[in-house]
């Protein structure tokens, strides 16, 4: 369990990072917290020739309020999200979901951008960004583009990110005061990737945002669950949303079982925010 030999470069400015990406493209891999990449390299599932270590690029880190959005730098540690007053106040769903990410050790190193770019189907951050309608800012030597989180994830571990692009920042609409949120996941052990999870946010206006993670290969945004109604009225909509997911089967759970868990998680979340 030792990685193949690789080169590592340690740029200190974004411009340098983008230049390195432009030069090396697919041969290079960005390393930030290394919580997903390093195990893959140790198992030799991933063998990048060049690692671009962005840990010294100060501009890529931090959480700030910008008008009606919160902007989170890609290098921001998951632990910092948990500790942030801005997140606690303006993004209560993210604050809640972050408590479920991995373990205290992995949160200390793991980054927001790293988790999103890795695109595990069960990742809490991916589910939250899809549910809240975050925008991901992708930068390259050629310029910048903004991709909605709901379009970013293409398949398990596959995103629209091009080899020369860096996921630089995440921009998330703030929640109005009085917003209610719920998050639930089913995992075999504390800190494991969830088999299924759900996230729900209810604005004071009654508008709902809901998403399901882990059931399909990418987080599922529940478009039809957009306004508060009674649980009885929402139940068929929940069933419809669950049925719409192309559920995965693997060693951990069958597709049917994933849907069962997703439905239970979503139902519990809705009940909580509507109570």
């Amino acid at each position, binding site marked *: 369990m*030792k990685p193949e*030999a690789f080169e590592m470069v340690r740029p200190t400015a974004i411009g340098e990072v983008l230049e390195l990406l432009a030069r090396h493209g697919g041969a290079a891999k960005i390393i930030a917290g290394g919580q997903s990449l390093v195990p893959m390299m140790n*198992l030799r599932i991933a063998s990048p020739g060049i690692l671009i270590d962005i840990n010294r690029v100060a501009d890529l880190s931090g959480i700030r309020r910008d008008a009606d959005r919160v902007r989170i730098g890609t290098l921001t540690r998951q632990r910092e999200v948990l500790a942030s007053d801005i997140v606690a106040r303006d993004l209560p769903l993210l604050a809640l979901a972050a408590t479920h990410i991995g373990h205290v050790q992995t949160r200390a190193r793991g980054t927001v951008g790293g988790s999103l770019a890795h695109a595990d189907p069960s990742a809490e951050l991916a589910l939250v960004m899809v549910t809240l309608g975050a925008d991901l800012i992708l930068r390259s030597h050629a310029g910048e583009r903004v991709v909605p989180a709901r379009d970013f994830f293409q398949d398990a571990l596959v995103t629209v990110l091009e080899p020369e692009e860096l996921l630089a920042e995440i921009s998330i609409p703030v929640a109005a005061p009085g917003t209610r949120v719920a998050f639930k996941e089913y995992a*075999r052990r504390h800190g494991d990737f969830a088999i299924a999870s759900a996230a729900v946010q209810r604005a004071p206006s009654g508008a709902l945002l809901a998403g399901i993670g882990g059931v399909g290969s990418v987080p599922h945004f529940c478009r039809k669950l957009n306004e508060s109604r009674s649980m009885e009225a929402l139940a068929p909509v929940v069933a419809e949303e669950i049925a719409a997911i192309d559920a995965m089967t693997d060693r951990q759970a069958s597709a049917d079982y994933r849907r069962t868990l997703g439905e239970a998680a979503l139902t519990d979340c809705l009940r909580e925010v509507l109570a």
Partner: protein
Amino acid sequence: MSAPRDANSPLRVEDKRLLTGKAKFADDLHLDRMVHAVFVRSPHGHAEILGIDPGPALAAGALAVLTAKDLPFIGKTLISRFFHPSMRTVLPKLLATDRVRFVGEAVALVIAEDRYAAEDLAALVEVEYRELPALGSAEAALAPAAVQLHPEWPGNVAATFRHDVGEAEAAMAKAVHRVKRSFNFGRQTALPLETRGCVADFDSERQSLSIWISTQTHYNVRNNLAFLLDMPEYNVRVVCEDVGGGFGGKSRPYAEEVVVSHASRVLGRPVKWIEDRFESLQAMTHSRAIAWEVEFGCDAEGRLVALKGRMVADIGAYTFTSGIVTAEVASGQCAGPYKIPNIGIEVLCVGTNKTPLATYRGAGQPEAALPLECMLDLLAKEVGISAAEIRLRNIVAPADMPYAQIIPYGGPKCRFESGDFPEMVRRAADRSGYHERPETLPTGESTAWGLACGIESTGFIGFESAKVRIDVFGNVTVWSGMTSQGQGQATTYAQVCAEALGVPFEKVTVRMGDTQLMAFGRGAFASRGAVVGANAVAGAAGQLKDKVLALAGTLLQCPAETLDVRQGQIHRKNGEATPITLASIAQAVMPMGPLYSGQASLEQELIFDTEQTLTFALSVHAAKVAIDRRTGFYRVMDYYVMHDAGRMLNPVIVEGQIVGGVVDGLGCATLSEIEYDAQGQLLTGTLADYLVITAPEVPRIRLDHMETRPTTNALGVRGVGEGGVIPAPPAIVNALARAIDPAGIGHETPLFHVPVNPEAVLAACRKAAKGVAA
């Protein structure tokens, strides 16, 4: 409820070293000129080896690449110490020659200057395989047209035998209640925190080998190395002073240490091999993997009259160096602590393309307890009595003792000779919370308690050595043929010695885990550390005390019987101190001393053995679970253990063993399973897939001790290593079945695959909702 902390029992003396990172594990050893080894292992479940080309690896800088044809002793196999008359022994080659039969089977060894380079170079060794049809399960292996693994195993059956007691068929026909079910105890692995590994240093001038290795059985390792490398035993030194857990996975020799030692001999340099986790999950032996079909019959009052069944052990690709011991134990223990007059059990050990099967904490006993304890719950429901009551009606009672084991797998003289099993069941039921009715929590979860018993046969494999020596300053050293993987023998053996000899605990130092210390030893496994190892120490110390008193009597001109040793000083029995100390006696017996008689030191060696090789210990577990009926997710809310350890040498260590065992058992019951696909591909190759219980999943564990002294050993101890594990899976399954439906039966069948995953619990909930009969 827990035993009072005994103010007189010392804290573990080994903990400071272990907890501050000062212990010396195999990987902590760094020798001058040391090089690193990596094994090339089979990626296929079953394949023919057409050719191996080490050329590219050698060209790229490998110091050596060893394959089967580089081993002059390739015709020999490891010594197997366990035999069953029905077993068709087929041990693996030390490196594969023409065929590989499981993912992870070693094919070649690559040596390089460091571990990184060795892994890169291992990837360059070109092995040409032709894949063969593989056997991914025992069912596939037993199918009529199945590919044959070995010519010695017709129909892929490595062993088959029966246990017949009484007239099972006839008795079953007359039973008032009969229940038939299938069980599957999934494949699991011992998973020590420290993986296997060794550093081998061959001295070509002396033609001697020193090996530092992570093992539970160093003398067995020495015996194998000497035999295979064709060396005198006295030229092979095996050291394992610190071992980071074994749990049965390291209780036998392996091919790896032999090949690594040979590499050191070839290269003339020390060679280190440390198994990584990926490799460990593939190549260290697995365990459990036993399936049952059983039928139990009882009379109208719930008294067991017959047990019929068939047990199939999926033993993997070879019979390994512990033979089919878990199949022997599991079938031998099919009646557990209960009286079942008629038994008919057929046992099959079936070969598959998987890692060979060997022992893991409990070694067949958890596999026996699962069907037995779950079936008792079903019969209780059929009869209309409680699960505690049916146990009380069948368990061996003090009046039945000595009670000869129904199937004497541990030797002809095995019997339950003491203990109060019914009282333990009663206390467990009364004190755990078992009598609470199953209920629904405000969260919507269904809860219930489940009960299970487990009989632990401790001290399996007789004989252990100890030597106690007193130096001229009155310090005492204990040498033992045992090993320690963290069980605390450095503390308990010092306690036992101090007590038997009459010296302060602080004066005693314990050394073990080095074949240079003693001529003979066995090691730590089968809960034998106290039962066999500590009794050897106590016996040697006791005999040494007799010797000391005789010498003191000579010096004091009085009968030895009038003297005693207290705090290292000779006292008269009337309490009066004498000027004679152990130090002065040790000085007196030295050459030129007044009591010199041809032996240079004050010491005594003893090999402990006992007429009955097993000491039995009963455990009764009770578990409370809560189930989310919509999803099948469940949690263990509370846990209670009633245990008889006999005399507790050190209550804190006993409690540590039991709590650790329960945690291990809960992992076995709820999470851990090694899985293969139909092609023999390992699906659980990392710890992201092979799930191990972690602290947040562990409930409160309450311990309750009963103390009855066994007559099988002078110290009056019973082993405690496995009783925490054995009843845990059925306790959980019984609690789940009861929470889902406290009265009915039939719904529970999906729960009879251990580990019980939530999807199976959901299936059981749905069956109960539909009222489906079995």
